[in-house]
């Protein structure tokens, strides 16, 4: 079910909330059981057979987690169980996500592997997310961080519908203490009001801002080979804002829903286009994924490299680690490996691998610049120079991200390269035969640049979007009074834009909600549902 659909808004959500209010009165366990039941209804709404799949996945992982904990006295056996669990999870993910693409690729190379037999595999909704959640849980069990053996608690942790399909990727330690606290076990106005407000802010971003861009982007990417300079840029920038508002909207809605039920999720999205470096970008974009990758991929790889260095008796001071000979194995390798895998996690296809490696390269350069580049002394600079350097850093970061997003969206590497070629002017600046266009100056200029007749409106819209992304406080800052998420400290918004439980805010939120519901067109999926 999609958050921004009528059946969710007016059917499922009231049903889930009311049922929870009643069940929570009956007792602690009833509330848990109700949330699990509602979450499975949510998950299986369009395709009930998917419930079987997620049930198998949960049963398997629960069994492994119990086995890991029961063998606390024998670390080697625990490790073997952990690897078995992680291996099976990855194998399932591979089967559903990559098997067909890989076999089809082999066939295209002339090998006969009968890829057709795998063509009917449908990617189960949210499998990338619930697989990651559960792998993290198994590692936590092995490390002795989680000790709770209760099946209902585990079911609730994995299936809780606000994060089930596209995150935020949660830790057991984030959620379980909150679910266990009886104070959270009831519907309360103090949670419902800010939760609903955050949800509506997210819905506006999704249906009013992101969705209307979809048509132009689909056309642009399909036609990438023929786009002139201006058209290629409009397409790419439109996509960068569709993705921005779609994912920001999704994250707000997920965090808002959780808050309605008295639970705070880890932050997922914090004005990423304000980032002044790629390192900072990843601290603001899909933050729960960054945290996950850091913890379960980057740290183990990086730590292994350092342990190996120590074992060889090499020095571990900052200076010694700054030599190029140390930089490659200690920084470049863990970063590229982590981001390459992060890219592939998003989907089968070389374009995702390139997206990941590109960001790995960006991050490596960013780290190298911090180590070897000129040391800036912010305090000593004149204000104007400081401002210029901020503008330059934000612009360069955005540009680097934009290039990555072209690969992220494209159907193939070729399509991405076509669009990038258009953006660098390789397809020319002007459309041939544009002189024949009749109409106002505006129409003629647009035709000359190879733009569609209404693209000037889109350009105005994009300018407004840039201003919003750069200068407006984000929803976490607006909702700061309610502390809607955990794990991040934000500067609260200016008092005029600061949410308060007041009539004025209730009316404004109601109007926004009305606008969003009226804008619900043919409901489109969230972009992150495909991962």
């Amino acid at each position: 079910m999609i958050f921004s659909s009528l059946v969710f808004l007016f059917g499922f959500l009231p049903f889930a909330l009311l049922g929870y209010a009643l069940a929570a009165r009956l007792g602690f366990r009833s509330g848990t059981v109700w949330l699990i039941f509602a979450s499975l209804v949510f998950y299986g709404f369009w395709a009930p057979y998917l419930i079987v799949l997620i049930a198998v996945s949960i049963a398997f992982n629960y069994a492994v987690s119990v086995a890991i904990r029961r063998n606390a006295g024998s670390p080697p056996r625990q490790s073997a169980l952990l690897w078995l669990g992680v291996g099976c999870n990855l194998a399932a993910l591979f089967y559903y996500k990559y098997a067909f693409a890989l076999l089809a690729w082999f066939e295209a190379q002339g090998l006969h592997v009968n890829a057709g037999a795998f063509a009917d595999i449908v990617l189960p909704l949210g499998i990338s997310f619930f697989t990651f959640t559960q792998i993290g849980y198994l590692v936590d069990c092995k490390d002795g961080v989680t000790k709770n053996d209760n099946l209902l608690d585990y079911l609730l942790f994995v299936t809780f519908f606000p994060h089930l399909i596209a995150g935020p990727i949660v830790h057991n330690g984030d959620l379980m203490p909150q679910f266990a606290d009886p104070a959270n076990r009831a519907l309360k106005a103090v949670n419902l009001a800010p939760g609903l407000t955050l949800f509506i802010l997210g819905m506006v971003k999704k249906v009013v801002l992101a969705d209307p861009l979809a048509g132009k982007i689909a056309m642009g990417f399909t036609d990438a080979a023929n786009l002139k300079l201006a058209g290629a840029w409009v397409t790419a920038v439109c996509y960068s804002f569709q993705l921005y508002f779609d994912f920001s909207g999704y994250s707000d809605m997920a965090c808002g829903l959780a808050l309605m039920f008295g639970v705070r999720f880890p932050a997922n999205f914090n004005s990423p286009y304000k980032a002044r470096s790629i390192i900072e970008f990843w601290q603001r974009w899909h933050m729960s994924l960054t945290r996950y990758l850091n913890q379960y991929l980057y740290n183990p790889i990086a730590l292994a490299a350092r342990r190996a260095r120590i074992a060889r008796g090499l020095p571990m001071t900052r200076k010694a680690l700054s030599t190029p000979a140390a930089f490659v194995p200690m920084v470049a390798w863990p970063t590229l490996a982590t981001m390459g895998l992060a890219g592939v996690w998003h989907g089968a296809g070389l374009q995702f691998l390139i997206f990941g490696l590109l960001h790995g390269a960006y991050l490596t350069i960013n780290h190298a610049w911090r180590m070897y580049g000129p040391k800036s002394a912010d305090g000593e600079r004149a204000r104007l120079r400081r401002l210029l350097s901020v503008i330059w850093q934000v612009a360069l970061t955005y540009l680097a991200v934009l290039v990555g997003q072209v690969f992220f969206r494209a159907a193939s590497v070729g399509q991405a390269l076509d669009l990038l070629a258009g953006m660098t002017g390789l397809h020319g600046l002007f459309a041939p035969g544009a002189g024949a266009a009749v109409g106002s100056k505006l129409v003629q200029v647009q035709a000359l640049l190879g733009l569609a007749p209404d693209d000037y409106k889109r350009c105005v819209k994009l300018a407004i979007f840039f201003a919003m992304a750069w200068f407006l406080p984000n929803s976490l800052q607006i909702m700061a009074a309610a502390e809607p998420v955990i794990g991040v400290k934000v500067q609260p918004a200016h008092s005029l834009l600061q949410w308060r439980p007041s009539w004025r805010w209730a009316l404004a939120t109601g109007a926004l909600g009305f606008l969003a519901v009226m804008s619900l067109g043919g409901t489109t999926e969230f972009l992150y549902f495909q991962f």
Partner: protein
Amino acid sequence: MTKDEVLSQLVAMMRDYFDDEDLVLTRESTAEDVVEWDSLSHVNIIAGVESTFGVRFAISEIENLKSVGDLVELVAVKKGIA
């Protein structure tokens, strides 16, 4: 070994790592207090602590070590210091 000794050995290791003899660290110090203690240095420090004290950290433990005090406590647990 006492927790205070863990702390002083840890501070000595950090001074060595950051190449800064004047570095002042207390239990309350966090990565935010030391300009050069970024995500990269964090892994380096963790590896340094492992070899200094002969302990090994688990994957799930590393992210939660946010302050010098956290490091001291975890090392103490691993070394069996009350």
